[in-house]
């Protein structure tokens, strides 16, 4: 609107007024067309040489120009006092622009034009001096065209006219000619003494004064009030025409100028200039003359008159007029310079000489304005301040033009003369990329004017006096100031001024609203659809005054105000767009895929440095929110409030945070109630801290097993021995399994995710909807509403279920604040490479933080990342795809529960070695059948045993013992055959055997079950895995150790059977004791318990009758149990086997460095002991009770003598004595195992050697006759050859003997294998030789 062009003093203002139903765009189009005529050659102006009207007419052949400007806004009424002081401030002519269509008739257009003029121009003004109405014909065949010829003040411009521009130029020249003529008339009036007196009567006199204008009032019945009449200028042009608009047309006179002449002649005398007013100086008159000459383009005359005026002002003290004169003179210089340079490519000069004079004049003028005493009435302050501000702006724009034009030259002049309706930006600055500091500084160097010079000049405009100005002038002055600062690159100063501009506009809006009866509190929303528009932004409609103009549903002004706000805040380092407004996505359920912020960005924000002035930022933000509330633009309120919460969180006081949050929420509610289609994005940083699956309860946890596990593997080692420890130090498969960390979850079962959220603000943050963001299989979950307590972390649980099987990826969460849009926050899992990259980046940032490469406006936080040039930071940008926590959804699984057990209080009490049974009843509570059931047990003895085994410190023997214990005597066992399918809802009872084992305190029953053979849904190959679930039942076990075995021994059966044995010796084997291959096993059993126990040992040797021995061991006592055992021999092959390891463990190195014989001996011990324990079974029974169990001998050790006793000899030797009776040899009488041969009689000792070993061997026999001197024998006693005997074969040798004495003879024989001196078997014979009888 009001541009403060430097040369505005020399520009003839022609107001463009829309008339009739012309549309805004059409109006703008024609206005632009008119504005191309910014200067008219004086020679083109038709001269009107009638008397005084000729005074300002251009001289023939003059070369000057008349400068035109085409504002579309009239000056405010309050400027009327400036009419004579500053005529260029007023539109000297008016052009109505009308578009003629078929419906309009020209008279109506004219009438509208005239009534518009009445509205626009105050009655007391003397302008405009000329007017015309251009009717642009729209379309073709306009019927009203011919009518237009009759209306002189109406010009119809046909649409088909060829050279429209030339025509318009001519019309404009005509109009200007009128104006110039009117100048003459005006001046003539002023030249009269009365006029001059009037001119000097006040500081800012007005024409026509009441006394002069009174006669003009004659025909005007409309203006009966005290106001001066309608401007005469109207009637001057409307010569002889009052067809329709009679009300304000005063005369039909065809010669307005003549009338004007006569009215001015009404005062008594018409004097020449020289004789005017002795009373008053003529300074003001000369100044007015100068002004008019300047307007008329006659700069020489203007300069002359100005100089005259200055001379006169020097003596008098008419500061304002003097200052105005100085301004005029400054303008003259510029116009002259422009004319001189017009069309020439004159060189640009940077020397100050050319313009320093102009500058000084303006400085003087400014000083004069500044010091002007306040003599006049109260309203003068506003105009004085206006004049002052204008002159400061004029001086500043002088410097600015020269600066921006790179020096004093044509470009600078044209900048200064630019009349446009919009501020003119010189080409040196209008380039976007040219606003860099270097570019601006280059302009300074070229032009010799530094920017701070301009700023210094410009800052004079700012001061308390701005308050004197009316709002319109104030806004205009501030706007110009701000744009000058902007062009200088002084953005902070610009922001300062813009805040004032905003203050003005908002004040107008608020006040205007109050005047409209919409008085309200700032927080109370207005009725919907109110767009309040400041007067600065209205294009076409002027409903005068300083009241905000309200258009319904028009938000254009709001937009600009908000833009200004954002700009101001941006300069202060606040990004009000930090929270964006998005189209509401509530309708479409698919959430907007927001780009996931990389971790790098998050780190960058972590290290962001403070920017800007916190106190200022807080103040500006508060103001911004208040402004947006006042507009009202609720979404903007929310956006601003939330943006500042987001970006200024660290500096906002808690009160402000509360206020902003509450305001934003309220505004969002209102906006939504109004049906706004936009909403704010999620704003409060990243609330998500952690997501984890809350671990499934054990009973629900599925365990993946390969299907191959179902096939029985007989060859396998029992896993119980290894304790499930991996034999491999590094097992890649296992490592893989742990790496992937894919937790198994079950389809259609509720999953709970624990989500940790944070709220860094001091208020309770509400999250309207929080949902999991998943990919992979469909996942059903419901959003929940959360309120995060202030400045804390908060944990919520989100539940949901996966409806299909497959991978389920938890990406993060969707978060939605009330009234906002959903936003996804992802939570990727960082790999080690990521971690390293992040930590490297963090280190680099840490190193950079605190160092400032850029300062001030160059280091806005949001620009920082772009400017970072550190190679270290920019290097690693290889984007790896983000990884998220993954779960595998497995098919639905059955669920089993333990319905009941036979165990009371979960505890089992047993005696050592007792076997009891636990009954566990399982119930299938799922709709799926269970077709796989396995029981696995664990007890407290397994662990230590496995540990001992794993350590490997045990001897081979101990190892075997431990392993045997684990394998063959488990605490728990069950019968696999009991298992069967459990249909849904059915029960199954399982019997579990418990074996009392000392040292066992607890045990656990693990039930694994599954639904393996499910119907294949489709043809896809059944997966190689199945899933089991586990049910665990812990059992407390108490085992009483009541019987102790100790002191095992094996003794030879007494060789002489006692007589006691005779009667029971029906079985002759029994009686034959040692010789018959029997030995005695004995062991001590001690009762350490409080109850007596009946202990029995049973012999279960194969092929032998069973035998038992039993006794009752009373508490505290020890009993030795003895039972005969048939001796046995184990084959060499059997013995030569190494001691087996049940676990089949590899890599076991024999630690004991035993020699071969030792090793053999150990093996023999081992194998014979094993054989012995196989043949013996110890049992106990509770005396008087029903409980019974096994008694283990396993702790007993076998010694070598015991082994010798137990082992059958290789060869058995039976010796009998035979007597010769005739040819036969009959055995001697045998009584009680003793032979009774006759003395001195030849008997035969028949020695039968039987090879009992399993191989054929060659034997010899040695006899030993203890009393050999009483025995005569035949043959050899040593190394009697027997020969080779096959296994089981026997051979007899006969030796002739004769006992020479009475008495008892012991004959023993010893069988030996050839080549060894070892006895392989012995025989013994006792012979009693006594006297007959």
């Amino acid at each position, binding site marked *: 609107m009001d541009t403060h062009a430097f040369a505005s003093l020399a520009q003839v203002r022609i107001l463009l007024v829309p008339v009739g139903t012309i549309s805004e765009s059409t109006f703008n189009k024609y206005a632009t067309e008119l504005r191309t005529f910014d200067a008219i050659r004086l020679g083109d102006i038709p001269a009107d040489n009638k008397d005084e009207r000729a005074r300002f007419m251009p001289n023939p052949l003059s070369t000057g120009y008349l400068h035109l400007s085409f504002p579309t806004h009239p000056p405010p009424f309050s400027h009327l006092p400036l009419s004579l002081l500053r005529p260029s401030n007023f539109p000297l002519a008016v052009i109505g622009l009308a578009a003629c269509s078929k419906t309009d008739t020209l008279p109506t257009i004219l009438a509208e034009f005239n009534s518009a003029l009445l509205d626009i121009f105050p009655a007391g003004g003397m302008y405009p001096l000329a007017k015309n109405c251009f009717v642009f014909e729209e379309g073709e065949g306009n019927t009203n065209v011919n009518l237009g010829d009759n209306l002189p003040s109406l010009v119809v411009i046909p649409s088909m006219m060829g050279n429209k521009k030339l025509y318009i130029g001519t019309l404009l020249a005509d109009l200007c000619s009128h104006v110039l003529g009117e100048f003459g008339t005006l001046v003539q009036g002023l030249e009269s003494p009365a006029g001059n007196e009037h001119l000097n009567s006040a500081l800012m006199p007005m024409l026509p004064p009441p006394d002069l204008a009174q006669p003009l009032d004659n025909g005007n019945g409309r203006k009966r009030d005290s106001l001066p009449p309608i401007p005469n200028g109207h009637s001057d042009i409307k010569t002889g025409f009052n067809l329709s608009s009679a009300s304000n047309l005063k005369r039909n006179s065809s010669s307005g100028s003549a009338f004007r002449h006569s009215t001015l002649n009404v005062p008594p005398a018409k004097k020449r200039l020289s004789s005017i007013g002795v009373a008053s100086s003529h300074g003001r008159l000369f100044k007015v003359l100068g002004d008019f000459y300047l307007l008329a383009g006659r700069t020489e005359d203007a300069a002359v008159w100005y100089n005259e005026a200055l001379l006169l002002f020097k003596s008098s003290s008419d500061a304002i007029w003097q200052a105005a004169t100085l301004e005029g003179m400054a303008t003259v210089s510029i116009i002259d310079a422009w004319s001189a340079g017009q069309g020439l490519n004159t060189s640009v000069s940077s020397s100050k000489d050319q313009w320093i004079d102009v500058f000084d004049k303006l400085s003087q003028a400014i000083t004069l304005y500044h010091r002007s005493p*306040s003599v006049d009435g109260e309203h003068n302050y506003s105009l004085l301040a206006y004049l002052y501000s204008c002159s400061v702006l004029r001086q500043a724009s002088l410097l600015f033009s020269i600066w921006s034009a790179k020096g004093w030259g044509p470009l600078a002049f044209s900048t200064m003369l630019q009349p446009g309706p919009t501020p003119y930006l010189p080409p040196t600055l209008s380039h976007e990329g040219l606003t860099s500091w270097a570019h601006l500084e280059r302009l300074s160097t070229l032009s010799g004017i530094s920017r701070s010079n301009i700023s210094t000049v410009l800052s004079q405009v700012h001061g*308390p*006096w701005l308050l004197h100005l009316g709002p319109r002038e104030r806004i205009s002055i501030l706007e110009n100031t701000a744009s000058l600062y902007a062009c200088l690159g002084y953005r902070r100063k610009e922001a300062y001024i813009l805040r004032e501009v905003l203050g003005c506009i908002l004040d107008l809006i*608020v006040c205007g609203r109050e005047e409209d009866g919409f008085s309200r509190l700032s927080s109370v929303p207005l009725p919907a659809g109110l767009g309040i528009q400041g007067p600065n932004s209205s294009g076409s409609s002027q409903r005068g005054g300083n009241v905000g103009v309200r258009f319904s549903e028009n938000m254009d002004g709001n937009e600009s105000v908000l833009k200004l706000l954002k700009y101001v805040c941006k300069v202060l380092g606040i990004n009000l767009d930090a929270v964006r407004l998005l189209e509401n996505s509530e309708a479409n359920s698919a959430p907007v895929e927001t780009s996931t912020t990389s971790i790098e960005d998050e780190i960058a924000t972590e290290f962001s*440095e403070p920017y*800007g002035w916190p106190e*200022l930022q807080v103040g500006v933000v508060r103001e911004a929110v208040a402004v947006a509330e006042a507009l009202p633009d609720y979404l903007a309120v929310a956006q601003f409030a939330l943006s500042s919460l987001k970006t200024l969180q660290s500096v906002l006081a808690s009160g402000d945070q509360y206020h902003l949050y509450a305001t934003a929420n309220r505004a969002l509610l209102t906006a939504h109630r109004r049906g706004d289609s936009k909403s704010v994005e999620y704003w409060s940083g990243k609330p998500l801290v952690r997501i984890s699956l809350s671990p499934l309860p054990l009973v629900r946890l599925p365990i993946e097993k390969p299907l191959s596990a179902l096939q029985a593997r007989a060859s396998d080692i029992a896993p119980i021995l290894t304790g499930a420890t991996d034999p491999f130090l590094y097992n890649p498969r296992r490592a893989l399994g742990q790496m992937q960390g894919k937790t198994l979850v079950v389809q259609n079962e509720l999953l709970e995710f624990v989500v940790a959220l944070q709220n860094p603000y001091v208020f309770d943050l509400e999250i309207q909807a929080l949902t999991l963001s998943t990919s992979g299989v469909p996942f059903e979950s419901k959003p929940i509403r959360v309120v995060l307590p202030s400045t804390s972390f908060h944990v919520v649980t989100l539940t949901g279920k996966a409806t299909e099987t497959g991978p389920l990826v938890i990406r993060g969460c969707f978060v939605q604040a009330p009234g906002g849009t959903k936003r996804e926050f992802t939570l990727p899992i960082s790999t080690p490479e990521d971690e390293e990259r992040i930590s490297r980046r963090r280190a680099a940032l840490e190193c950079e933080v605190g160092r400032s490469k850029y*300062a001030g406006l160059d280091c806005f936080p949001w620009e920082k990342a772009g400017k970072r040039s550190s190679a270290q930071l920019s290097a690693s940008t290889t984007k790896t795809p983000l990884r998220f926590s993954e779960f595998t959804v497995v098919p639905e699984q059955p669920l089993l529960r333990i319905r009941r057990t036979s165990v009371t209080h979960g505890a089992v009490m047993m005696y050592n070695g007792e076997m009891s049974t636990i009954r566990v009843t399982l119930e299938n509570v799922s709709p799926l059948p269970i077709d796989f059931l396995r029981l696995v047990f664990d007890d407290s003895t397994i662990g230590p045993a496995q540990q001992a085994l794993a350590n490997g410190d045990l001897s081979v023997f101990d190892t075997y013992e431990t392993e045997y214990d684990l394998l063959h005597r488990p605490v728990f066992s069950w019968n696999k055959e009991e298992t069967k399918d459990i249909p849904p809802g059915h029960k199954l009872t399982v019997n579990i055997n418990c074996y009392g084992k000392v040292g066992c305190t607890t045990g656990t029953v693990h039930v694994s079950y599954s639904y393996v053979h499910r119907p294949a849904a489709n043809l896809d190959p059944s997966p190689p895995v199945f899933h089991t679930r586990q049910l665990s039942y812990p059992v407390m076990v108490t085992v009483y150790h009541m019987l102790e075995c100790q002191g095992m021994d094996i003794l030879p059966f007494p060789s002489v059977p006692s007589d006691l044995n005779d009667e029971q010796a029906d079985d002759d084997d029994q009686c034959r004791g040692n010789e018959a291959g029997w030995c005695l096993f004995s062991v001590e059993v001690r009762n350490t318990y409080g109850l007596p126990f009946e202990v029995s040992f049973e012999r279960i040797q194969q092929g032998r009758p069973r035998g038992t021995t039993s006794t009752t061991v009373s508490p505290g006592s020890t009993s030795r149990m003895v039972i005969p055992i048939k001796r046995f021999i184990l084959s060499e092959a059997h013995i030569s086997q190494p001691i087996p390891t049940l676990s089949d463990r590899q890599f076991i190195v024999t630690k004991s460095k035993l020699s071969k014989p030792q090793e053999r001996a150990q093996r023999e011990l081992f194998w014979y002991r094993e054989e012995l324990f196989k043949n013996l079974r110890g049992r106990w029974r509770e005396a008087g009770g029903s409980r019974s169990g096994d008694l283990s001998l396993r702790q007993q050790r076998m010694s070598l003598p015991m082994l010798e006793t137990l082992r059958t000899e290789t060869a058995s030797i039976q010796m009998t004595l035979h007597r010769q009776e005739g040819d036969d040899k009959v055995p001697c009488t045998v009584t009680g195992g003793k032979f009774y041969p006759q003395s001195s009689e030849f008997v035969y000792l028949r020695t039968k050697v039987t090879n009992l070993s399993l191989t054929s061997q060659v034997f010899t026999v040695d006899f030993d006759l203890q009393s050999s001197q009483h025995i005569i024998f035949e043959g050899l006693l040593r190394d009697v050859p027997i020969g080779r005997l096959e296994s089981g074969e026997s051979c007899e040798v006969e030796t002739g003997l004769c006992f020479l004495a009475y008495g008892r003879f012991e004959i023993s024989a010893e069988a030996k294998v050839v080549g060894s001196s070892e006895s392989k078997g012995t025989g013994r014979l006792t012979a009693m030789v006594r006297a007959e009888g």
Partner: protein
Amino acid sequence: MPSFALMSHHLFLLSPSDTPLYSLTHYSTKPTSTVASPLSSNLPNWSTSAFAGTLTALSGAGSSAHQTASGTVRMGGGQDRHVIQMIANASLDAIEDIMKTQNAMFLKSVDKFNEWTISAFITPGNMKFVLLHEGKNDDGIKSFFTDVWELYVKTMLNPFHTAHTPIKSLVFDARVRASAKKNL
């Protein structure tokens, strides 16, 4: 309109990112000698809306009105302080402009706004000391700035002090005040 109020000085130590690390308001014992323009007298009492209040304060009318009304040296409440800060912040434009072309650390009277003259001192680390003052006292201001600089350098010797750490040292404050009393 000679005011009988005492001259006030406002010192701001600004980090390279325009954040104030320290600020001081000092009232000199010397009376102000500025003569207000007649244009700024007889201002309308303009309190139509809250926004007008902002405008009043920003244009500089608020401060002078306040001063004359109360007659004391107090600079009024938050709004005036806010304006002072705005002016100091806005003067950075001029300071940055000049410091790029000139080598001097002390930029005397680098800017003027409303009734305030702004002098500045730029340390080699791009810290800016901005002083808003009313009178002309170049020598005093220069020696004041030199004192503050020395004190600031001593503070920066603290290894935990970065270019963005606000200065809260009481010793620093006391010494700056002492220097202000001496020089301003």
